[in-house]
């Protein structure tokens, strides 16, 4: 069942010639390939990508732990990094949700903060809703699953766009795994503060993905994937998740290119 919440209805601009990329702290130090792939993919669409070197973290870890002032200080530093009035494409639904939906309240004393938040687009959302992209699939036929992060699903309402992109790939069959909409158990500090509950959740999620009979799963959130891939590796399973930016880049590159 698809949920379309009125809070997710928003205005989408015409295709821009330039965008910012927000890489997120996790991608910066752990999974930078996804950032480069996202940039490359956007550039292939004829878009100039700015990557402000001053960006760090959206502030969500502190915010979700109840440390609002600390989160605010970090959030403020981010806003200052994106002065041009162009879209900010973010390769995480979770950080996107933070910047789009929590900044207005967190930074309510910042003038025109809403205008900043209105420039935030999650990567798959940007491809589908702003670029209206049509993908050409050059890859082998395969089955994949999609894991949408809870923030992408419920805060950003972009769980549909990831699936739409996969469905454009003519050689890829999208398999729905059991309890697809259920949380993987990451939840930032939740996975440490309540490690046993989080463990039970990620074990179920990784089992459900593994049972789906797919060669890989894709996701637009490295937070979830760090959690799920870590569990899969621990269980010595071969299944892994891949960031959707990397996956789309790979599938759409001319055959022979790796």
């Amino acid at each position, binding site marked *: 069942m698809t949920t379309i919440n009125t809070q997710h209805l928003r205005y989408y601009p015409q295709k821009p010639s330039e965008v910012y990329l927000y*890489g997120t702290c996790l*991608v910066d130090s752990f999974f930078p390939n996804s950032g480069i792939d996202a*940039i490359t993919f956007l550039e292939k669409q004829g878009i100039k990508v700015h990557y402000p070197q001053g960006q*760090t973290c959206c502030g969500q870890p*502190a*915010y979700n732990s109840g440390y609002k002032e600390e989160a605010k200080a970090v959030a403020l530093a981010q806003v200052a990094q994106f002065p041009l009035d162009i879209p900010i494409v973010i390769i995480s639904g979770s950080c996107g949700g933070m910047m789009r939906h929590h900044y207005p309240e967190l930074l309510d004393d910042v003038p025109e903060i809403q205008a900043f938040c209105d420039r935030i687009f999650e990567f798959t959302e940007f491809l589908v809703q702003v670029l209206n992209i049509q993908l050409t699939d050059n890859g082998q036929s395969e089955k994949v699953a999609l894991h949408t992060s809870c923030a992408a699903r419920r805060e950003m309402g972009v769980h549909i766009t990831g699936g739409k992109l996969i469905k454009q790939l003519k050689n890829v069959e999208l398999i729905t795994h059991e309890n697809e909409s*259920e949380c993987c158990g990451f939840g*930032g500090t939740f996975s440490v503060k309540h490690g046993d509950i989080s463990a*039970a959740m990620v074990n179920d999620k990784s089992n459900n993905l593994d049972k789906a009979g797919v060669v890989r799963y894709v996701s637009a959130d490295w937070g979830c994937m760090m959690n799920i891939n870590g569990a899969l*590796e621990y269980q010595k399973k071969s299944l892994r998740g891949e960031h959707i930016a990397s996956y789309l880049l790979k599938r759409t590159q001319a055959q022979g290119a790796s």
Partner: protein
Amino acid sequence: MSAHQVTPNESKYAASARNFRNNVARDLNNAELRENFHGAMHYLRDKRSAAFPQQDELETLREQCKLIKQRCLAKLPYLLEQLEENLTSNGIKVHWAESTSQANDIIATLIEEKSGSQVVKGKSMVSEETALNDFLEQRNIECLESDMGEYIVQLAKEHPSHIIMPAIHQNKKQVADLFKQNISDFSYTTDVDELINVGRNILRDKFCQADVGVTGVNFAVAETGTLCLVENEGNGQMCTTVPPLHIAITGIEKVVEMLDDVPPLLSLLTRSATGQIMSTYFNMISHPRQIGEKDGAQEVHLVLLDNGRSQAFADEELRQTLQCIRCGACMNHCPVYTRIGGHAYGTVYPGPIGQIVSPHMLGLEPTKDLPTASSLCGACGEVCPVKIPIPKLLLRLRQESVKKQDGNSQVMKGEGVGRSNIEAMVWKAWAGVHRHSSIYNFSMWWLTRLRKLMPSKLGVWTSVRTAPKPAAKTLHERVKKHQSSGAK
């Protein structure tokens, strides 16, 4: 008697909530329990989803019902006065209790004034809040639960693990075993029809003999002075119609302004709770038995309980907690509840709603682990029929929990209890790094260069996962190279 006095009843739940982490460890490792919850939650999710075939109807109703509850809360003190006035003129007596012990005293006194010794009880979570059964037992008044699930739970000397389906943690074999241990002439069966029939026969005798019926209330209508009860079994009606004395107990947030407010709320309540388009019975009581009438309770009383609700009311954001109509959909859809079950929370109300309401009832000190026991996945907020932003309220409670005590405005009892100096310092340092990109970039540069030194064991994280490894170079560095290599 002060509202914040700790009574023996309050400490029972406080103690078990304080033990949350041990409860979780215990129940996560109980395979049968997890299977029972897993099956039940998926059953209830499917039922709910089938009951809302049209998304636009659901969303329109949710918005309408949210606004109804917000209006009723905005007028709460005046509606309570109006309710009292109309109930009183209808012949129903109204009592007020700030604390659970006050509520129990009121109820016991009413029963003792009538020399009552046998109470039958319809399902009432508010009476669980006050631990009424224990209290009346101590006064030598038998208090028998008559909802089938509650009856099972009482036999097992447990408390409800779910607000709608109290015995959801037990399967039919466990119920059969329980009956065998407790009912003398029970001939063993695991057939559900037969098990229910055993309960029916025992309880019908009790309805016939009881001198008091105690129930909860789903909606109290101020405009007409009407108490509305939603149920499937008929035990609620038995409790309100057969014994000569009916005592209803409810939280002050259950009042609605008008009769017209009831149909949309009722429609969302039953569908969200069990996926029924309508419960079997909807019982609307506006008077005690009137002259010439042949049945119905001759005396009807309503006890209005605060128990921390006015604390939530005092903060506009936290006030949304009181919009709840107790459908249980949040727990049915919660991945945490589904895995740890209802008893692990230790509180009367389990699951997401319990996590946001219990800190007002018990204070944040015993409940400080509850607001953090959520991945903030948002499933609860998505299904809430009155649009309580549960994840947002959990965040707010986390803030209250780690708040620095400055001696000024106290928002809630126990605020600041979760603050540790070490954690506060860690976040301060974290903010220091992340607000200055030069320090951040320097740190990440070192993190990636020292990746080989990353420990492979990271406490609880690596109990079921491998440790993530930093990349060789940061994205910041790689972008610089990417851009200088002449890519567009």
